[in-house]
């Protein structure tokens, strides 16, 4: 039973106050995209044993979507942050790196 802190209202939410929303930072592909791009966008999902960036909605609260960096094996939560970003902000990346040596965001090499 997870606890995630809503970055908007600061409430430490019980899992039952939240709705999960799958992988974060997906890029939408619409008309004009290739079949492969569209398939990727709609169906292919990161499914890691480890650090995962995902979407949650504070549905029984302020109603806002937010992002969480969470470990799918230990369930450790590295941080929650705004949903209005295309990639995890630096402080979240740092928080993950601090706890998971060697980890880096997929766009960084």
């Amino acid at each position, binding site marked *: 039973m997870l606890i995630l802190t809503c970055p908007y209202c600061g409430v430490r939410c019980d*899992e039952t106050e939240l709705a999960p929303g*799958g992988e974060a930072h997906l890029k939408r592909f619409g008309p004009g995209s290739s079949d492969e791009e569209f398939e*990727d966008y709609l*169906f*292919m*999902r990161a*499914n890691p044993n480890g650090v995962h960036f995902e979407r949650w909605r504070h549905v029984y609260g302020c109603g806002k979507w937010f992002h969480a960096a969470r470990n*799918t*094996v230990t369930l450790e939560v590295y941080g929650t942050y705004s949903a209005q970003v295309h990639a995890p902000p630096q402080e979240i990346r740092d928080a993950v790196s601090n706890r998971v040596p060697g980890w880096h965001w997929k766009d960084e090499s």
Partner: protein
Amino acid sequence: MGHYSALAIAREAFRDHRGWQRAWKSPEPRRRYDVVIVGAGGHGLATAYHLGKNHGITNVAILERGWLGGGNTGRNTTIIRSNYLQDASAAIYEKARSLYETLSQDLNYNVMFSPRGVMMLAQTEHEVRGYRRTAHANALQGVETEFIEPRRVKELCPIIEIRGPRYPVLGALWQPRGGTARHDAVAWGYARRCSAMGMDIIQKCEVTGIRTSGGEVRGVVTTRGDIDCGKLGIVVAGHSGHLAEMAGFRLPVESVALQALVSEPVKPCMDVVVMANTVHGYMSQSDKGEMVIGGGADGFINYTQRGSFSHIEETVRALVETFPMISRLKMLRHWGGIVDMTGDRSPILSRTPVGNLFINCGWGTGGFKAIPGSGWGFAELMAKGESPLCADLGLNRFREGRFIDESVAAGVAH
């Protein structure tokens, strides 16, 4: 391998059961096999069994990271049914169900298939229409089901509260030849036969890499050394994405926790399997007397084999309402498994972008019931390159928009 029978037991009884042989051998891996299957769960073992039995391929290794049958095969609620709506699903589940009927004899291992009947309650008008539709579809698919009236529901399962109050039972989709089986025995029975056919079941052997060249699979890297193979089948449920990544392709799969629970055992009071999808829960009684209960899956990725208690609560709440007598029974144990959910919640039995590498995954919440059919079809696919049972279950369907959506008829598919 000795033959199992009442006579054999009697014989052994008089020599202190010293004569029983190992059910399966525990060999060291060889350098090369014609076929390597990753995952010694029900689906992997059944695949190997049918490779041998149907296609004469016995130079096979089945690699298992932990202990055989230790994943979802040994963690599910053992329901067997084939009353699916879509043709592709009905075909493979009905194949499986029919194979279950003779599996004990085929394997010479009693898997205790109990065709006690499965009913799916209709508790809204919408469900009534959905299940009537399924019954029509099933009739044309050769799956024996019928839509039954509330009175019949009560006769078949007297402990159901059919009058509601909240969701009166309006009828049910009844599959008289559905039922349950002993889940561990399915894995053990297959393992024993595979071993007897000369296949190597290698436990505590984790695959850490997949070797390819020229777009074709060459072998696997394992914690017990490199193993070459002609063909590779990945049958690892929740860990499929991880293995696919090793081979360089992605899957439309997310791994989530699905939970189940049992009550303390009581004397027989329920002779059928009941699924109540409007309220999200299902229940049957095991031969030991435990009420075996399952419900919904978590909505987030989770590899802990523990789920959120809120799902247990939701399920128990639904079943206390449906079967008021269980209120004073006690939950003995609850547990979770990691299930692999695809984009359309139907399985993938498919070739992959890598030559001679095949994947069988995405069974989600419904894998146990499919084991023999899945093994049959996947073995055929691996042996021949195609199989009617798998034809519509390929990976390409997501790109083409050719989904197999079973949520059409029921809120949850189990």
